[in-house]
């Protein structure tokens, strides 16, 4: 009995010490981690959106559709909506889900960035390279057939990486469909402090 108590108390004390140490570390790093995560998101937003002067990650519209929630980030310059960005994930990737950040402006795809992927290095991983991503950019959202040329669309695939290319198109298309469907909600309501007109006009051009 005495022996058992000793086992229990030693393990308890060690666990309590570990807990205290972890609590202290967490308090020390929490803000830095939040800042790093935000900086990561802002970096992706900066890459896909035109020049803006607001904080798009704090000017968002959330839309529930198809069983998941979409977040649309709105970029403004002098209160005018100059572009919208969103993150979209495709589970059609070769090595796992592929997450893309898409920036939309004036009814065109502005820029596309790959956020996360687990594709084969040297083959599927080439989806992160600019020459491939450029094939999506400056195309009209409505007038483009968002599919690989092989599947009857207009996007050229990467040689030997059809599945990865197709997954990127899939992610893009899903997000753009939601965007078109909810465009009014996304671009219309300006934040309360800014003029309501500015938010509507520029962003609403198809």
């Amino acid at each position, binding site marked *: 009995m005495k022996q058992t108590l000793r*086992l229990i108390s030693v393990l308890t004390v060690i666990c309590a010490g*570990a807990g205290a140490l972890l609590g202290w570390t967490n308090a020390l*790093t929490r803000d830095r*981690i939040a800042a*790093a995560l935000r900086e990561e998101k802002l970096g992706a937003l900066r890459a896909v959106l035109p020049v803006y002067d607001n904080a798009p990650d704090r000017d968002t519209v959330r839309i529930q559709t198809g069983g998941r929630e979409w977040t649309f980030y709105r970029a403004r310059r002098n209160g005018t909506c100059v572009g919208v960005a969103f993150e979209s994930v495709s589970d059609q990737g070769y090595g796992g889900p592929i997450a893309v950040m898409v920036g939309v402006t004036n009814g065109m795809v502005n820029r596309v960035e790959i956020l996360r992927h687990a594709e084969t*290095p*040297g083959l599927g991983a080439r989806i992160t390279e600019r020459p491939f991503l450029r094939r999506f950019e400056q195309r009209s959202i409505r007038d483009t057939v968002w599919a690989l040329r092989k599947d009857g669309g207009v996007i050229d695939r990467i040689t030997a990486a059809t599945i990865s290319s197709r997954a990127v198109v899939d992610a893009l298309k899903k997000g753009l469909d939601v965007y078109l469907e909810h465009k009014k909600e996304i671009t219309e309501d300006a934040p309360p402090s800014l003029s309501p007109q500015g938010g509507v006009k520029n962003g609403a051009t198809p």
Partner: protein
Amino acid sequence: MTFYRELIKGLWRENPIFRLVLGMCPTLAVTTSVENSLGMGMATLFVLVCSNLVVSLLRNLIPAKVRIPCFIVVIATFVTIVDLFMNAFAHALHGSLGLFIPLIVVNCVILGRAEAFASKHALWLSLADGIGMGLGFTLGLAALGACRELLGAGSLTVWGDIKWALEGYEPFLLAILAPGGFIALGCLLGVMNHVQSRLAARSGRHVTPPQHLDCRHCVMCRFGK
């Protein structure tokens, strides 16, 4: 003198990767580039030194029956600390190492050193053992990472912008894919064994390798001693 011996044994004679062949999960998984290898190695070094110190301090308090859970709690605590700090201060590296940072908990090198060394030796010897083993692990990872990155990507990225790239080299992709890890590790182990047997032969302790390469009868790993 003993301190020094415990310190350098991890670098070559008892190198965790090439001699003890422990911690193969991170060895095969993260050595696709030198940067990842160094990041992983430094994280493991920190956990190894801290866990060795704490285990050595508590070695007379921990009852033998619950020693493994105690060691695991200590190791998991330091791994979580590394995970949090890396996420806060080296966010990009944390992103590329991903799941393999939490997985340091199950790295056999660390539990192995806690059980085989730190729980039986004084604080300063355990410190030397931790530093030596951690550096040996880091260097092993870096060597493997350098081979794979050079062959598979045609570049060497030490840290951030400190990198060299081979111009006009067509990367041999297999080297940075999963099978390339096994092949590179096998080749490096072979080279290490060859060097060891040469060194042993030169110092007059010639040992013929056993006919059947069976771990129980093989003495290759004792050549260096």
